[in-house]
Every structure is written in structure tokens, then in C-alpha cells.
């Protein structure tokens, strides 16, 4: 142990009901207390975020009769970044009769997460997956269909069964519209108060329970306090800590980070997912990265010039001078190795000088063979929209010239720690969707993010939250004048004033960009202790500079986008440090993460189950004091642990 963190008590109370895994969810639902319909109207729930998880939860709680207050930073709930998911949503429907089952989806998810997730949670996710598809279809989500009129599925992300339901390349959009419309129906019914362009800036904890939030009205700048019987965070992941990611520009960690500072444990912050098929950076101006569905790897071949620094037109490089490095290194899986393996191999090629394109940060994804074999029209029908998107962004025609791709941060498996009920370590604070850490372990399967968000929002939280609400209503007489509420609001105002008063010489974005490159370099796909310790030093230095030299223009009481960003980036600094500390602690190669100290003789990832088969849940102990690590040991009764191999 070093002075970067301390060790706390292990976590034991997980609310896992135990017993046979198939019966646990039933058991938990039966044991949970209920709230009578007549009483629900008097109970209120705050939901932060309106993506798949938050939107579906707010709608469902509204339908149940609770008084819901829903907040999002966008101008409409329908714009949450779930909308950008392309590929599909998994469900163990077994409509193909191809041997799929709840058990198999459970197994694939645990294995895909490299054995760093909880069996009980994942099994429940697989159980609930079927109902999600039913629900979405009933709402009018236009999934792809066969000519016979029944639902079509495809196989996704190297899985051997066809369990992925999809709606062209816009599955996230269509599922989100389903949840959004259900939410708007409740707004009309009067059960949900919707607050758009409102950002949560702090959590209010009264007598040890989450009872409200401090919100900034992003149009007027007014700081509001809202109280409720329970608070649900569905604010998404923190991939934007890397600055360049496939997240939306506004995605941020402020809600979960502020809750963490108020006592919620943060689990596995270093578990981030990197997606191999993104469009490469074109220059320093780049503000975000665009993902293309990894289905492209089904037909495209990935290569780089065999000679480092070869900058000929790719079409002029003869076969013998190309290195199809994935096919060479992984003959069994070739171009279809998992996301993390493909990503790391590509980055290594670029680091060794084989990268292509203007920045040298890219590898070719070549469709010439596929077009020759299947014909252009087949490729067009399969990938036409992706090719168009690529052409729009790069002005290159992928039918003629190989695409260039590069990995990018895409999803964060880590998040606030939650128990089986999706309740954080602060009673009354529930966390759902990408904002929690629960189901994906150290790596997420393709098409499972949508599944988890909707499982949490439609089916799990609306059941588990009853148990809390039944026993712990907000005491009468507590209102926004409560000292804790006033204190939280004052702290938020003070912080805003502080940011506005610095009036230094650098923009918020320039700090964010620098922070992102530190994380990408040292806490990305491949890490080592030396790099992480170096990164922690860099982050601390940069954070200090930020608080003394950032320039935030404008005022508090107006729409002020610079101020919004400044607050988010300030939180990213603190989170980034914790990510590095977590990565430093986890000295194993696991899931999407390669620790160079932990590899096999062949240079492949080496997981260390004896030492690290636990969830690392971090406790905030104050600024400047080392965080405290609480371990939740993972026990595997139903799945046997294996090392991954794709040779």
C-alpha cells in the first residue's frame, strides 16, 4: 500500500437474496415491501437524466403513481446520448431456436466482463431482457422485421447466437424514443414534472439519506433546491473525462461525482471501454470522435503498411508490403477479436510508427476483398449508411480507398457502487444505467448497454425502490429551508463564484483537452504503474493550474456554456485522479485493460483472479486526503473462471 489510498472494510451487505440463482429476483421482489397505490401520490422521486435508464424509470414510476421530478441538461429528454447507440439490444428470446437461453446470455455477459461482475445481477439482467423487447414493441419501436412480419435478429460482437434485436443502425434512437414517449405521456398525465435545461450540481443528504438535489436552471442561472423521498441518478457514464470520446459533448460526471463526494462509493472507475472502429482524429481541433458499428469488422480487413512510415497511397501498397496484423497475430479469430484486443493491437501498430493518415493515428479497414467477393451492392446494403457517414466526415470514398479507423473511448463500465437493489451506499440514492457499475464487469458485450439501461429503468428500479420508499418517507416538516439543503445550495453558489472570479489566461476546453490526453496516454488501453503514478502527478498539477488560471467568461445569472463546462471539467479532474489510482491498484490485465506488468509469455493479457476478483469501491475522504478502498469480493457459483484466448 502506498500513500495514494488506504484500505477500508470489505463490503458485505449487498441485499442479494441468495438461494438458487433463477429464483433470486422473484425472491427479492416478494420480500420487498410495497407501497399502496393510494400512498404513492404522496411520495416523490427525483430522477436525474432522461436517457434509456432515466427516461424509462421516470415513465414507469409515473405510471405507478409516484410524483416524479425529471431533470435533463438537454433541451429535450429525447436528446440524451442513448440516442446515438447504433448496433442493437440483446435479449434471450431464442426466437431463432439457436440454443440461446437466459443461462447463455448470463454466461456470455459474465465471461465478456472477464469475471468482474456479480452473478446475481447479471442473471437478473438476462431474465429481464425478454420483457424489454416486449415492452419496446408494444410502444411502437420499429425493430427490423423478417418478410413474414416477425422480429429479425442478428449476431453481434462475435457471439454465436442471434440474439440482437435492431432498428437499422439506430437502435438506441428508437428505444429512446419509446421511453421518451412513455415519459411525455406521464408528463401529460401530470405524474411527471419535466425540467429540461436543468443541471444537477449537488446532492442533498439529510440524516444520512439522499433527500434532494441542487439544480442550476441553465437558462436563468438560478440555483434551485428540490427535495424528494428518494433520488435516482441516471446521468450516464464519464467517458468524456478523456475529452475525445464517442460521448456527446455535454455528457459529464458531475451528478455521480457530487454524489460520490457526499458519500456514495465509486466502483471500478478504471474500467472504461475502448471501441476499435472509430473515425480517426483529423487534427488538434477535433472535438469528439464518431463511432462506426463494429459490424464493419465482419467484412473489412485491418492492415497497416509493413514498413514504418510508409505514406504511399494505400492502393499502391502491394499485398506483400501490407501487414494484416490481427489475422497474423490471432489466426483463429482474425479481424473479429474482441474490442479490447483489436483496439490495443491497433494502438501498438501506430505507436510503432505504422499508423496511417495525416496524424499517423489510424489503421486501414479495407473492403476491397469483400467488394470483390460479394459485390458492391451487397456491401452497400449492409454498410451503406456507415460508408456514407464516413464519407461525410472524411471526404474519402470507402468503396475506393480503405477506411481509416482508430480506437476511441466509448463506454464506462465503472460507476457508482450499487447493491442488488441498485441502491448506492447512501440510503435513498439509487443509480441506474451507465452511471452505476453493476453488470458489465471489466468489459461490456456489444448490444448490452441498451439492455442494461432499460432493464434498470423499466423493471428493476421500479420494483426495488418501493422497498425503500415504503419504510423511509421524507419526514414531514422538512423543506428547502433545512440546513443541509441551504448548505448544499450555498456551496454550489460559492463554487460558481469561485470559477467566475479566477479570470485567468486559459479556456476551459484547453484544460479539458490536456486532461484527456494524459488519461488516454496513461490510463487508456494499456497501463503500467510508472505511467499511472506519473499521470497522477500531471493531473494534480493541471488541476492546480485550472483553479488558478482558467478563464470563465460571462455571469452566473444567464445562460453560460463556459460556466457549465468549467464545473464539469473541475469534476473530471478529481475523477481522473481516482481512475488512475484505481488502475494503479488493479495490477492485473483484465477485460478492456492491459497492465503491462501482467502478461503471459506470449504477451497476452493475464488476469489475476487470486488477488483481484473483487469490485474496487472507493470512498471519498475529503479533497487532498487519500481515498479509501472497500473491496466487494466476487464469488462465482455458476460460472467457471477461464482465461480468455483468441489465438
Amino acid at each position, binding site marked *: 500500500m502506498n500513500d495514494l489510498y488506504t484500505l477500508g472494510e470489505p463490503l458485505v451487505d449487498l441485499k442479494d437474496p441468495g438461494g438458487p440463482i433463477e429464483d433470486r429476483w422473484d425472491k427479492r421482489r416478494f420480500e420487498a415491501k410495497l407501497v399502496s397505490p393510494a400512498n404513492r401520490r404522496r411520495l416523490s422521486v427525483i430522477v436525474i437524466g432522461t436517457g434509456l435508464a432515466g427516461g424509462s424509470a421516470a415513465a414507469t414510476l409515473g405510471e405507478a403513481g409516484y410524483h416524479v421530478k425529471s431533470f435533463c441538461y438537454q433541451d429535450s429528454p429525447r436528446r440524451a446520448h442513448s440516442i446515438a447507440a447504433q448496433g442493437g439490444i440483446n435479449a434471450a428470446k431464442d426466437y431463432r431456436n439457436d440454443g440461446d437461453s437466459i443461462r447463455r446470455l448470463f454466461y456470455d455477459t459474465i465471461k465478456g466482463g472477464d469475471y468482474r461482475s456479480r452473478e446475481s445481477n447479471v442473471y437478473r439482467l438476462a431474465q429481464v431482457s425478454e420483457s424489454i423487447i*416486449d415492452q419496446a414493441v408494444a410502444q*411502437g419501436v420499429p425493430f427490423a422485421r423478417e418478410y413474414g412480419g416477425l422480429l429479425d435478429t442478428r449476431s453481434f460482437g462475435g457471439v454465436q447466437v442471434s440474439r440482437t434485436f435492431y432498428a437499422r443502425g*439506430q437502435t438506441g434512437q428508437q428505444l429512446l424514443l419509446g421511453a421518451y414517449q412513455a415519459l411525455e405521456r406521464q408528463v401529460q398525465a401530470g405524474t411527471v414534472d419535466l425540467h429540461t435545461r436543468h443541471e444537477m450540481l449537488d446532492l442533498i443528504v439529510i440524516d444520512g439519506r439522499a433527500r434532494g438535489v441542487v439544480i442550476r436552471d441553465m437558462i436563468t442561472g438560478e440555483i434551485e433546491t428540490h427535495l424528494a423521498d428518494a433520488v435516482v441518478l441516471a446521468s450516464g457514464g464519464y467517458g468524456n473525462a478523456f475529452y475525445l470520446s464517442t460521448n456527446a459533448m455535454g455528457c459529464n460526471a458531475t451528478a455521480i461525482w457530487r454524489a460520490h463526494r457526499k458519500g456514495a462509493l465509486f466502483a471500478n472507475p478504471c474500467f472504461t471501454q475502448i471501441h476499435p472502429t472509430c473515425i480517426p482524429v483529423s487534427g488538434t481541433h477535433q*472535438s469528439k470522435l464518431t463511432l462506426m458499428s463494429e459490424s464493419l469488422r465482419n467484412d473489412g480487413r485491418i492492415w497497416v503498411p509493413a514498413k514504418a512510415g510508409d505514406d504511399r497511397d494505400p492502393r499502391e501498397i502491394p499485398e506483400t508490403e501490407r501487414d494484416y496484423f490481427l489475422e497474423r497475430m490471432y489466426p483463429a479469430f482474425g479481424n473479429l477479436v474482441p474490442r479490447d484486443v483489436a483496439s490495443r493491437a491497433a494502438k501498438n501498430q501506430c505507436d510503432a510508427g505504422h499508423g496511417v493518415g495525416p496524424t499517423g493515428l489510424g489503421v486501414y479497414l479495407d473492403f476491397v476483398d469483400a467488394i470483390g467477393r460479394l459485390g458492391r451492392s451487397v456491401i452497400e446494403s449492409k454498410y451503406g449508411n456507415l460508408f456514407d*457517414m464516413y464519407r461525410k466526415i472524411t*471526404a474519402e470514398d470507402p468503396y475506393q480507398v480503405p477506411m481509416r479507423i482508430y480506437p476511441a473511448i466509448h463506454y464506462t463500465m465503472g460507476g457508482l457502487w450499487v447493491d442488488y437493489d441498485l441502491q448506492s451506499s447512501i440510503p435513498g440514492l439509487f443509480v441506474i444505467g451507465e452511471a452505476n457499475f453493476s453488470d458489465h464487469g471489466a468489459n461490456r458485450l456489444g448490444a448490452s448497454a441498451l439492455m442494461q439501461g432499460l432493464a434498470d429503468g423499466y423493471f428493476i428500479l421500479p420494483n426495488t425502490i418501493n422497498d425503500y420508499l415504503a419504510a423511509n418517507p421524507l419526514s414531514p416538516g422538512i423543506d428547502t429551508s433545512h440546513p443541509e439543503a441551504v448548505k448544499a445550495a450555498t456551496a454550489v453558489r460559492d463554487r460558481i463564484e469561485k470559477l467566475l472570479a479566477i479570470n485567468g489566461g486559459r479556456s476551459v476546453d*484547453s484544460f479539458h483537452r490536456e486532461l484527456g490526453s494524459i488519461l488516454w496516454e496513461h490510463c487508456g488501453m494499456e497501463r503500467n504503474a510508472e505511467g499511472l503514478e506519473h499521470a497522477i502527478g500531471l493531473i494534480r498539477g493541471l488541476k492546480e493550474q485550472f483553479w488558478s488560471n482558467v478563464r470563465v467568461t460571462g455571469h452566473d445569472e444567464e*445562460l453560460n456554456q463556459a460556466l457549465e463546462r468549467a464545473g464539469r471539467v473541475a469534476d473530471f479532474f478529481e475523477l481522473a485522479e481516482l481512475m488512475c489510482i484505481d488502475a494503479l491498484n488493479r495490477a492485473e490485465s483484465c477485460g478492456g485493460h492491459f497492465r503491462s506488468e501482467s502478461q503471459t509469455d506470449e504477451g497476452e493479457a493475464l488476469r489475476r483472479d487470486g488477488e483481484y476478483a473483487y469490485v474496487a469501491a472507493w470512498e471519498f475522504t475529503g479533497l487532498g486526503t487519500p481515498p479509501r478502498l472497500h473491496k466487494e469480493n466476487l464469488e462465482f457459483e455458476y460460472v467457471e473462471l477461464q482465461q480468455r484466448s483468441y489465438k
Partner: protein
Amino acid sequence: MNITLRIWRQQNHDDQGRMVSYGVDDISPDMSFLEMLDVLNEQLTLTGDDPVAFDHDCREGICGMCSLMINGLAHGPEALTATCQLHMRHFADGDVIDIEPWRSNAFPVIKDLIVDRSALDRIVQAGGYISAPTGSAPDANTTSVARKDADRAFDGAACISCGACVAACPNGSASLFLGAKITHLGSLPQGQPERDSRAVSMTAQHDAEGFGGCTQIGECTAVCPAGIPLDMISQLNHDVLSGLTQPGGQ
């Protein structure tokens, strides 16, 4: 490239607003239009000016948050492209580019290039859904849907709710937005029970918000980044008229 920008600046809703000129230099043709505005804002921040406020989020053409009237065209000169996916290579060195917010009485300006589009949400609230409370759904394959109906529904569901149709319409109508949602839900068997009341209620709200009517000019379809076709407005008209004439419609 060096570009001159003439941008609508308006401090808040009550401010009069005016066009202000700025120069941005060394713009790369590979930049997106919004990244070019990022460069301008970085410049303004360092000189202590207020950066230009504009809406944007996903920057990959799907969330519908970005807007901007660019040289009088909603989302700029490229067809089927939202502002965030527009790149500077479609402009030339020395160009003067006019940038304004969406304009419509139903979209009041909040600040600079940001407008309030919550009217579109209220139209959805009025009936843009299928009532299917969580847990009540039958198995997903209970009802089969003809592929052409599913495709038609999808074509309508592709709307990203950006409001470009309103911005481009000489009548300030949101009929394309409305028609897309009516077609999406009305093409599916699940959407039939509420089809009449949905069309009637959403249309009532559309008009109550102060949007104009449709004269079938089609400017909306020319700027729509999602390619919503004009016939969806006719579908809307059809469903409203049939909804109003159904016995017991009231």
C-alpha cells in the same frame, strides 16, 4: 482557410439582437462547422468576450440538438446533413458566412443562436405515444407487422426533432415533424387504437403552439437531415380528417 462570420448575437430573450462580424483564421477544411465555432469561441474567451452560445450535443447527427441557419439554409448547404456533420470543406477561403438561430414564433430565442424548442415536446405530450404501461406488453412476436409497414414506421421514426422544418418553412409550420410522428405510430398495428385521437390531439397542440399550416411547398423536406418525406404530411392530413369525422370522435 480564413473565414468571416456574421453571427446573430442576442444576450437574452428580451434583448433586441443584431448581426456581429468576426474573423476566424487558419480553419482546416477537415473541421466540422461546430469545431470552427469552437475556434471562434476559444478566440473570444481569450480576448475576454462572451463566447457565442449555440446548441449542440452528440455531434454525430442523431440527437437533434444542433440547429443554425447557415447562409439562410437550415443546417447549411449539404442535403441530409445536420449542422454538426457539416464540414468546412464545403466552404472556401475568404467566404463570408451568415449564422442565425432558427426563427419562428413558437421557437423564442433564448440566447444568441439558441432557441426554445419545447413546443415540439408539448406536441408529443398531447398524444405522440402508444399507451403501453410498463409490464403490460404481450410477447413481442404476438403481432406480426408487415415489413412495409415496419419500414414506413421507421422512416417516420427517424425524425430527430431538430426543428429545421419549422426554420425553413415560409409558414413556420411544424407539419413535417408532426406528420413523421403520426406516420411512425399510425403505420403500426399497436398504434391503431389511438390513431384518431392522436392525430386530433397532436394537431390541436401544434396549432395552439402557434405553428403555421402546410402549403405543400416542401422546403422542410429539402433541409430535413433525416430525410422525412413530404407524403407524411399528407398522412397527417388524412388521419386528422378521418379522426374528426369518425362517429364519436369527440
